[in-house]
């Protein structure tokens, strides 16, 4: 029932990409005539908003385009909205961090978002790989933007591990082709050689696991989030991480539908190790950005719990339980953008590059709004009710229990209980003691925080979201 569209009218499905691409070049051109940072930022924001609105209209009629290499279904469109939202989130705060040559930064941002959108609109491995590479290359350059020691070191580490993982992905894809004979990810490929399938599964898990920063492949993420500019690390930890998550959803849940039991075991082991490592190493971390980095590793651990639940559900061939798990993952990623993005943007509140927890002490006296919204974001990261984080974790653990993986749920929920320790420690610091001298409060710094906090609160109460998102999951099995 997915219509196949060919010829000229297929172009209408690529309008979001065109909007972004054209504005990217327009900004580059404007840059030559010396347009100011604010102008570039607002142009970027307008174009992102425009494609956001257009994507909204494309819902509910899935279609194959360009001889079915592209598939525009609700699942992909949902993630497109997420990536555009991530982009919009960091455009204005970027003005604080990006001083010189801002037009390059904003055009890079737009082109990376184009890469993300293309990744979201296809279920063909080649297209996924190419768009994944577009995103990675764009983010390598964004990380190294100011060419200071810190950003350079961050981007070198990011680049080298990224490049190694790209080659692993390509090898994985080649073995996938050898095993299934096609690049299309559909739930029922005829498995030619299961040995190759297993090898490709292992390689793809390492390759994509790198971008999601799961345990063995997470080390670059800690240094890169710490080193790069605040809005860049915000974009990295939300946008590019969720691209990897979406691609993994497509690849594993529908591509490797056949041997779900294997990836259930692999992902459970990885999830347990990642959560525990992320949570425990964040406990005594005093550098706030590194603390958020470790917490994003831990959050990645929660994300891949979706694969264990979905894999186990496929194992016992109960598809709607698998759909609950995927829907839970989708909600978690939506909430994750605002929580993690907002938290990293909060680092703009402190003038120092190496933000220490004590730098934010007494924030309540300087700007109560910032203090309140950052506490809401941290409470949401900890999973306290009435916040979005709770909604995400609620459905995630519900999916785990519905699949009867009670022991995994207990490990995960104890991890999230331990994580409460370091989130609340930061909140107390903000509300006690005298305001530290290197707090600088600017409207650009505070407004995005308040927006994120509001979004998190709204999501926290909006339980009906689960049924709408559950409707989108169908797209995964076209």
């Amino acid at each position, binding site marked *: 029932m997915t219509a196949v569209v060919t010829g000229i009218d297929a172009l209408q499905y690529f309008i979001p990409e065109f909007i972004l691409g054209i504005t990217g070049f327009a900004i580059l051109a404007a840059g030559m005539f010396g347009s100011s940072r604010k102008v570039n930022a607002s142009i970027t924001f307008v174009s992102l908003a425009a494609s956001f609105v257009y994507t909204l209209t494309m819902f509910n009629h899935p279609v194959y385009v360009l001889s079915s290499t592209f598939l525009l279904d609700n699942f992909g469109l949902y993630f497109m909205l997420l990536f555009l939202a991530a982009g919009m989130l960091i455009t204005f705060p970027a003005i604080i961090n990006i001083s010189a040559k801002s037009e390059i930064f904003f055009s890079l941002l737009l082109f990376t978002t184009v890469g993300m959108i293309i990744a979201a609109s296809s279920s063909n491995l*080649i297209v996924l790989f190419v768009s994944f590479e577009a995103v990675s290359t764009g983010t390598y350059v964004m990380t190294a933007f100011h060419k200071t020691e810190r950003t350079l070191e961050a981007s*070198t580490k990011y680049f080298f591990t990224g490049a190694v993982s*790209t080659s692993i992905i*390509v*090898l994985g894809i*080649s073995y996938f082709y050898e095993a299934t004979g096609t*690049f299309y990810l559909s739930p029922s490929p005829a498995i030619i050689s299961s040995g190759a399938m297993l090898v490709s599964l292992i390689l793809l898990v390492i390759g994509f696991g790198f971008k999601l920063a799961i345990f063995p492949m997470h080390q670059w993420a*800690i240094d890169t989030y710490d080193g790069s500019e605040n809005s860049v690390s915000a974009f990295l930890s939300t946008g590019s991480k969720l691209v990897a998550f979406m691609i993994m959803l497509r690849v594993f849940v529908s591509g490797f539908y056949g041997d779900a039991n294997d990836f259930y075991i692999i992902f459970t082991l990885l999830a347990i190790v990642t959560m525990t490592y992320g949570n425990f190493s964040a406990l005594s971390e005093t550098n706030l950005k590194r603390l958020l980095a470790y917490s994003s590793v831990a959050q990645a651990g929660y994300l891949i719990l979706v694969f264990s639940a979905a894999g186990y559900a496929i194992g016992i061939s109960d598809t709607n339980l698998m759909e609950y798990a995927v829907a839970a993952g989708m909600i978690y990623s939506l909430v994750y953008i605002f929580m993690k993005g907002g938290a990293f943007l909060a680092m703009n509140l402190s003038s120092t590059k190496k933000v220490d927890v004590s730098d934010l002490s007494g924030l309540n006296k300087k700007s109560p709004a910032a203090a309140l919204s950052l506490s809401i974001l941290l409470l949401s990261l900890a999973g306290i009710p009435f916040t979005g984080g709770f909604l995400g974790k609620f459905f995630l653990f519900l999916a785990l229990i519905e699949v009867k993986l009670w022991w995994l749920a207990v490990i995960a929920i104890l991890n999230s209980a331990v994580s409460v320790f370091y989130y609340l420690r930061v909140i107390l610091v903000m509300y006690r003691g005298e305001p530290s001298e290197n707090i600088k409060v600017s409207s650009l710094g505070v407004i995005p925080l308040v927006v994120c906090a509001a979004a998190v609160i709204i999501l926290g109460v909006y339980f009906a979201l689960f049924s709408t998102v559950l409707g989108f999951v169908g797209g995964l099995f076209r």
Partner: protein
Amino acid sequence: MELFLIQGLTLLLFTIGLYGVMTAKTGIKTLISIEILLNSALVNLVALGYRSSQPLVLALFVIAISVVESAVGLSIMLAVYRKFGRITIQSLREMRD
């Protein structure tokens, strides 16, 4: 039968590349070994070309991407050299706990 031989070649190239990445002192050496890695994947892809032309399409993309990778890598190394005066990436240790 010959597919097995070629895949043996890919794995060999892949391990050489990995070894190069892990032991390279200077940035450029790492870049070269990353190229080796990508090429090993390329060989495997081309070897699978006998079934249909799709893997060859991917091979073309992979060639383009390896060029982009090395371009970005070299520009980062250039900036590192200009800033730190040397490109031994071991010395980049400022980010640690």
